[in-house]
């Protein structure tokens, strides 16, 4: 009975990611054995009901104990009722087969909601990407996420280059990343969005605005939580992708449950290599004498390699642990750096390398039907190296030009050792059917020290700041009460949070060796969702939040980001309001509209510091207002069209240093962007056992200013900017399209994708040109 027990889906959903043990789970199949996604499963006599996922699996978060009847139904199939006996510590797993119904369909169709749909409708604004739907595509995670309204992922150039994500107008470190609900700060670059394989992921959850207590972190703009597949189920997936610019990506994800035991073991691994030697043209580049270079140039020092392997093992569903998992990982990265923030000056020898080793421990247990606890501990060690030892400068033809005694950016041979510790505790207690209490506390520490024979000294102490140990301690704790009223139509969560910060980092200019910073503050929030009916709801959330800067913001990244030991946490008032409904009876047209308002004090932004460097600084107040809309149309079962539109108005307020910029737009953040995507499934003709899926995406980003510029000079939407304003990222149109071919008899699929099909000029935030039209081919095996 335990063998097929799928109940411990630890990180099942956003808010209660780690909280639910399921004593009742199972699988719904049709009479040919095909999983029935969307089948509804109800526990008769209770208000409990769930929906089967894409694999036909279902589970109940919690159930009462006793004898019950389970009612399983799906459109076009005969409803089936199964008797079950539910006991404490006796999980039940069922396989239920539904026979096709010969009856005519009712006129009013009530569709089951997928897990993803359920998550979307939580009181806290959350978008969920079901990775199963896109895993066969070569589409990278940033491109997948870009299809969500209000969310913009920007990648500086090719594969492996840094990504930044903006959610509802906030970006950078205002957005927190989680893996299975755990903050990912300790993972180093191994967790870069552009590197992560999709094969071992289950969902990508995007939280907008208010974060649930269970995530226990400080964020202003929201969060991205990547949930991995359950450990209690066998799976195997492998993919190999080749792409333009000698890009090779290999992914492997295996989980194995030892038969007749509660032991599991798994391996997750990826390997990414690319030369990134794409061609581009730029109006900004001239030869040494100022003559514009109009011919195509090729990036020549941009190769990137990353390797990651994670081995995990543990037990699940025992008396003393619902899950206990130990994971050991190794990650390394080698990266050639082709440019700073300017495209004009190429770099020919600057390199970065990182090795991260980490160990983590995860434990979860439903102690009593009402008590659930979850503990996570991790240690990681990042060793990074930055080298800029070139004796010559380079031009865009890869030729050495002139001797340089000071390196290409700044002479350095820098090694940094960083130790990270994470501890997180989450507990939930269900008071009764209406109320539950959640407690969460997360501790992060970072200790860093480095060496660099060329690093400059503090001007008074004469000591190299890099050699002085820097420390960072952060504790974010939260207490929340969840509630349900009016027959579960009104769901809410009320919470308070406590933020604690202590840092000590090297002083670059002062007389003391280090600068210390201490901060403690409180925040609170409230979220509600009211469901009018199955498809229509309103949701509202408010939070007074604090965001504590991350260690990197204090310490710098030792390459282009300079340190700032005196950053203070930013605080904000966040309000999110959303409404969603279906527009027709058949529910094939749905619309969702969300608005947000955010007032952020001591707003932290990255400022360019010269042509190569940047630094995080507190700036004045920022007011962000925005509206985002999602339309989804399903003209038929096999096709869908969706459109996401975001308009956000982010403006500075109380800018004492520059009153002329009062109420001007926050620069370097797109303010209007849209995504239109369509996909269609075909059954391959001629009796071949093939599924074909064609898809396309069109992303539009309106022009935006690189630098803060007076409001009077702002052009309207689609208008030309005044000729005096020249530091602009032009409007961008990106079209990606692809086709996935899926074999029906073996779990193999093949995907071909064209990126930037229009060969349009695309830029990152510093006008670095991105690749023109390029291609990817991906083969995925998934079982």
């Amino acid at each position: 009975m335990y063998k097929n027990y799928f109940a411990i889906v630890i990180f099942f959903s956003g808010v209660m990611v780690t909280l639910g043990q399921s004593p009742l789970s199972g699988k719904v199949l049709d009479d040919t054995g095909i999983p029935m996604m969307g089948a509804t499963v109800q526990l008769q006599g209770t208000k409990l009901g769930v929906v089967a996922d894409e694999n036909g699996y279902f589970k109940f978060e919690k159930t009462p104990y006793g004898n019950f009847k389970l009612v399983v139904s799906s459109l076009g199939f005969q409803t089936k009722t199964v008797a079950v006996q539910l006991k404490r510590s006796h999980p039940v797993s069922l396989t239920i087969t539904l026979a096709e119904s010969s009856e005519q369909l009712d006129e009013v169709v009530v569709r089951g909601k997928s897990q993803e749909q359920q998550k979307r409708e939580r009181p806290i604004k959350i978008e969920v990407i079901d990775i199963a739907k896109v895993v066969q595509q070569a589409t990278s995670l940033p491109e997948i996420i870009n299809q969500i309204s209000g969310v913009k992922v920007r990648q500086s150039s090719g594969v492996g280059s840094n990504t930044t994500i903006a959610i509802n107008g906030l970006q950078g470190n205002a957005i927190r990343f989680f893996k299975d609900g755990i903050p990912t700060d300790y993972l180093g670059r191994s967790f870069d969005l552009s590197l992560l394989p999709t094969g071992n992921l289950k969902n990508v959850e995007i939280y907008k605005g208010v974060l649930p207590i269970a995530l226990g972190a400080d964020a202003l703009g929201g969060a991205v939580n990547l949930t991995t597949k359950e450990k209690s189920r066998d799976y195997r997936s492998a993919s190999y992708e080749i792409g333009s610019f000698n890009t090779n990506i290999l992914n492997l994800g295996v989980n194995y449950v030892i038969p007749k035991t509660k032991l599991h073991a798994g391996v997750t691994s990826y390997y990414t290599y690319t030369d990134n030697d794409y061609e581009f043209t730029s109006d900004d580049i001239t030869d040494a004498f100022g003559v514009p270079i109009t011919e195509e140039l090729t990036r020549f020092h941009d190769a990137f390699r990353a390797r990651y392997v994670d081995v995990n093992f543990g037990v699940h569903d025992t008396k003393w642990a619902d899950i206990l998992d130990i994971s050991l990982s190794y990650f390394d990265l080698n990266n050639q750096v082709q440019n700073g923030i300017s495209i004009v000056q190429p770099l020919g020898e600057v390199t970065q390398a990182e090795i991260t080793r980490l160990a983590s421990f995860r434990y979860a247990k439903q102690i009593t039907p009402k008590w659930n606890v979850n503990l996570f501990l991790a240690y990681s060690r990042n060793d990074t190296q930055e080298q800029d030892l070139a004796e010559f400068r380079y031009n865009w033809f890869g030729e050495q030009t002139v001797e340089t005694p000071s390196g290409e950016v700044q002479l350095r041979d820098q090694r940094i050792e960083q130790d990270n510790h994470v501890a997180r505790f989450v507990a939930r207690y269900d008071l009764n059917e209406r109320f539950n209490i959640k407690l969460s506390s997360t501790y992060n520490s970072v200790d860093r020290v480095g060496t660099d024979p060329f690093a400059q000294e503090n001007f008074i102490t004469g000591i190299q700041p890099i050699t002085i140990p820097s420390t960072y301690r952060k504790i974010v704790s939260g207490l929340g009460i969840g509630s349900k009223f009016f027959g579960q139509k009104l769901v809410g969560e009320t919470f308070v949070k406590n933020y604690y910060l202590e840092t000590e980092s090297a002083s670059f200019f002062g007389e003391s060796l280090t600068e210390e910073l201490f901060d403690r503050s409180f925040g609170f929030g409230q979220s509600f969702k009211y469901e009018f009916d199955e498809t229509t709801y309103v949701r509202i959330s408010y939070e007074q939040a604090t965001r504590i800067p991350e260690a990197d913001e204090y310490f710098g990244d030792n390459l282009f980001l300079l340190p700032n030991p005196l950053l203070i946490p930013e605080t904000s008032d966040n309000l999110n309001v959303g409404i969603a409904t279906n527009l027709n009876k058949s529910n094939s047209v749905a619309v969702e509209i969300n608005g947000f308002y955010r007032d952020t004090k001591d707003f932290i932004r990255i400022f360019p510091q010269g042509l190569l460097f940047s630094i995080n600084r507190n700036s004045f107040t920022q007011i962000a207002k925005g509206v985002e809309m999602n339309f989804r149309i399903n003209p038929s079962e096999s096709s869908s069209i969706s459109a996401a539109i975001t308009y956000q108005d982010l403006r500075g307020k109380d800018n004492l240093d520059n009153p002329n910029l009062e109420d001007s737009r926050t620069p370097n953040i797109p303010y209007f962007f849209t995504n239109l995507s369509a996909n269609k499934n075909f059954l391959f003709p001629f009796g071949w056992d093939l599924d074909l899926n064609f898809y396309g995406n069109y992303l539009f980003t309106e022009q935006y200013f690189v630098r803060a510029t007076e409001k009077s000079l702002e052009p309207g939407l689609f208008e030309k900017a005044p000729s005096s304003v020249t530091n602009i990222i032009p409007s961008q149109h990106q079209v990606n399209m692809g086709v996935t071919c899926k074999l029906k008899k073996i779990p193999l699929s093949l995907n071909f994708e064209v990126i930037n099909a229009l060969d349009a000029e695309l830029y990152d935030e510093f006008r670095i040109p991105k690749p023109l039209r390029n291609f990817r081919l991906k083969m995925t095996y998934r079982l």
Partner: protein
Amino acid sequence: MKTIKHVLIFFLGIGFMACSSDDSNPEPDNEPLAVEDDTPEVTCDDGIQNGDETGVDCGGSCLPCDTTSFAVFAITNTEDGSGFLVPYDDLPTGEVDISASLENGYQLASTRFSGLSYGNAVYAPANTFGEAGVQKFVVNASGALEDAGFLPGGAASVGSGTIYGIASPSKGYYSNHEVNPMAVQIFDTNSMTRTGEVDCSAAMNQIVANMDPADSDRIVQMAVGGGFMLERDGKLFTQMFFEDENFEEVVDKTFVAVIDVASDTLEKVIEWPDFIRAGYYSCINCNYASVGDDNHIYLSNWIGNFTDPEGLVFRTIRIKSGETDFDTEWDINGSRDFPNGENFFLGGTVANGKMYVKMFNDPVDPTFSQLGEKKYAAYEIDLATKTPRELTDIPIGYWRSIHGPEIYDDKVYFIVENSEQDDPNDPNTGKYYYYSYDPNTGGSELAITFTGGQPQRIVEMQN
């Protein structure tokens, strides 16, 4: 003493630009104006340009046209040093809101180091995206500034980066150490194209050969065309550098190249027995090197080698009119000549036998931690007695703009930045004052109050 460099880097925000440029003559050679005729045409008041008029009812045989116009380099965002170059028909007076004129201006990613003017053009030390070089702007028919060409200065810089100077209406010089560190580049100011270079390598190699091997062996880079670049009477003067791995000069001497403009050849290299970074440290067009109204070239700075035992001290040396050698009979040394320990000056504009600077009005302690204090006063230094006199009716301010005083209409204009930026109740917040000092009367008055941006330098154009 790398430490001192840090404090400078800190205060100057040196990162704003990797280059610098010439602090060349702020008073460009005036084009000859039309001479008033004894028998003016009667059409001089008909409101249209006719006859031999060069403008509407002016020029030719009418009264001379008002041929000057101005442009202000203004930082409109102090957080990243970006801003605009903004044109004005006349020298601004009274309250001037810079942001009201931006439509005619041109956005500059880096405005901290500003440009200079020559004839009807402004030459900025970086293009709109902040790339170092020589960026020419002219005012078009509709009164707006437009891009008139750009010459890159290259990423490499020795001394204080990419420097340029204009020698004649069609000829300029600049440095691009990426092209050739041991040459001064020549460019056509009309087409904004490089036309050649003045190779100085033979003379530089000879200087190295004459050095003590203990010094010459430490040279890791050498270059000409740093610090400053000034043309006077057909000769171009610019500094040479011979640096060790810490970017310090290997010998405590100031080397200046004298280039003959007509033949584009290096005429000679002159030496001063004390190294100063003439034209300031990484400051571009800051007026620390200038040609005075006496036609002498004055080279000033308080920075030499960071390892100098004398530390940072006000120093000025000069090349007299008609000569191409240093005036060995004259120099100013603050620690020798100034009675109250004044130091850390900005500028070096010379008129009527006086030098005008903004200067810290208190002795500075060795940690330089006071440099951010509101203690910068206007000074007039008598070049004969070498004594500084504080112009006390000009308010004390901070050191925010790194440019020195300028002379317009025979008056010296001092910028005063005295707002407490983090105090919303300070009436000076958002305001930048220019006080004009009249050397004839000895009086000063508030001349311009800028809002909507932080002016860095006003340049005067001849149309």
